[in-house]
């Protein structure tokens, strides 16, 4: 069964149509990349998938793990195994990262009918997952993303993904604002989480990230539609030729 099946998806923001008929199927274990210029609808796609209420799905169907996600609110999609790594992670003063993560992990476990983690088990899990993205302990004690650098915020996103162990990870322009070292650490983290039963949707403007997270399939999104799909070599083609030939049409 496909992990994610998007059929003829149309979506709009504030009554403005952005996505105009997207078809995409992701199977477990696959990494798909969606590349596109600014304004093509990349972030709209990730927000519609994650259940942001500011975005309206106007037509089509999205099946996640066989279930129509129209039936699921944003937090239920997360609990069912979907994870969105934000392009701009939100800063929340007053809540420590640890407190936030414990609430999240236990919310997901509760939904899935698994026992809640107590403080000790939770700390063990943190110690295990910390190694994946090499996140500093003091960042975990600080308020969520507050005063974090751009790289620290993105690392924190991947750390959260590692903690929540989703079936599908959606990376929304995770590479934006990262220098090459930070990019490599984030990509290493994602690669460590690749597994035969987990899928990824990597959304990016630039080919650079795909040197580190090598995709199985690449799709080009222009003006709300997928105009071309191919293998990883398509990303290199785009690097050489840019989006100009499609945007001009």
């Amino acid at each position, binding site marked *: 069964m496909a992990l994610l099946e998007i059929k003829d998806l149309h979506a709009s923001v504030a009554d403005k149509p952005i996505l105009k008929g997207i078809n995409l199927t992701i199977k477990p274990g696959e990494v798909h990349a969606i590349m596109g210029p600014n304004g093509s609808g990349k972030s709209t796609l990730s927000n519609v998938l994650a259940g942001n209420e500011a975005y309206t799905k106007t037509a089509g169907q999205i099946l996640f793990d066989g279930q129509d996600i129209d039936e699921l609110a944003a*937090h239920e999609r997360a609990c069912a195994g979907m994870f969105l790594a934000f392009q701009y992670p939100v800063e929340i003063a007053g809540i420590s990262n640890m407190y*936030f993560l414990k*609430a*999240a992990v236990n*919310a997901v476990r509760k939904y899935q009918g698994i026992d809640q983690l107590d403080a000790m088990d939770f700390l063990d899990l943190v110690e295990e997952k910390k190694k994946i993205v090499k996140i500093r302990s003091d960042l975990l004690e600080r308020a969520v993303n507050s005063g974090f650098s751009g790289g620290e915020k993105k690392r924190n996103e991947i750390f959260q993904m590692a903690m929540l162990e989703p079936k599908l990870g959606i990376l929304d322009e995770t590479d934006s604002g990262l220098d090459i070292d930070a990019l490599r650490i984030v990509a290493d983290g994602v690669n460590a989480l690749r597994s035969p039963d987990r899928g990824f949707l990597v959304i990016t403007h630039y080919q650079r990230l795909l040197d580190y997270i090598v995709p199985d399939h690449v799709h080009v999104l222009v003006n709300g539609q997928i105009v071309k799909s191919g293998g990883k070599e398509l990303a290199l083609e785009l690097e050489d030729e840019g989006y100009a030939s499609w945007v001009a049409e």
Partner: protein
Amino acid sequence: MDLKKLREKAAADFKANGFPTTKEELWRFTDVSRVATAEFSNDWKPSDLTFRALDKITVVFENGKLSREKSNFTELPEGICIGSILDLVDPRIGTLADAQSAFVSSNTAFFADGTFIEVTDGAKIDTPIHLIYLADVDGAAFHLRNFISVGKDAQVTVVEEYIGQSGATYWTNAVTEVFVADQGAVDHYKVQRESESSFHFQTLEAQLGADAVFSNHAVTFGSALGRNDIRGKLTGEGGEAICNGLYLLKDKQVFDTHIFMDHAVPKCNSHELYKGILDDKARAVFCGRILVQKDAQQTDAIQSNGNLLLSRAAKVNTLPQLEIYADDVKCTHGATIGQLDETALYYLQTRGIDPVQGHAMLTFAFANEVMDEVKCKIAKVYIEDLVHEWLDQVSK
């Protein structure tokens, strides 16, 4: 002036001037006629209220009078002296709180007890001093006077907690004067849990020497009508004053915070972060005045006040006032009145946290930001528990 004369003069001032009215600028938003017209008795009884001691050292007052039986300050570390203000004398009493209002002058005239704390030069006191004021006599007035003096390079942590019997109507009128000598540090907390039908007024005055630090966290849950007047005097270079606070109000509570930060000399910092959460028909006033005098170059003063309204009928008046007479200074202020951040709520949802829990977490986070920099862990945990308790009640 000796204390006896000072008290006579204060009584005369109080008699001549009476209580302030809303025609006065400093009292424009807070009508105290309910206090001015009430009759208060001198009735006394031991208190039936219970409390949780934060640590080994406690000074407990029952209905305005020190209870040596309930207190625990007989065995103290070296360098600190604690007692009743009626037994210990210092010529500086009354020199900071010099009768700006009827509340200070009536306190100076009528105070019947209070805490005296003196820390000698170089003494660093690790155990927080927990002052507990219990009130459960209906119709009484409690004039409490506290004096805290910290010597050069000395340190102390003081938690002032006011606890009242639910349903009791009484008037707490407290004045606390704090003197921090050069390189000294006072970490001060005030937890106000008075009865929801009481009146609570406190003037807190702190004077800081060179490189001295005064940190104050004022957390208010109680009183029908209340006010904190907090005044910081930075009189030595390199001084730092932190005045953070949180007010959690519901029903028809009215609570007013007036801060006056006086930068008299160069190179001092002052930081004020105040948050409020208001439900029902509650009303809050926040007035933060920062004065940077002509000589106070390189002053760094930050003030911010954020409010979260849980009901359409709740109201806040927030008034920043900067008066700057020096030219090389950094002063910022900001005030917000708003709702919870929807993007933050969405972020929590994408991590599996449902909107009800997310809402509760963000409301707590909003309040708890003022506690982010708290040094005293015991006080932090205690206050966080009280905030959770209040939020749980409101969400029901």
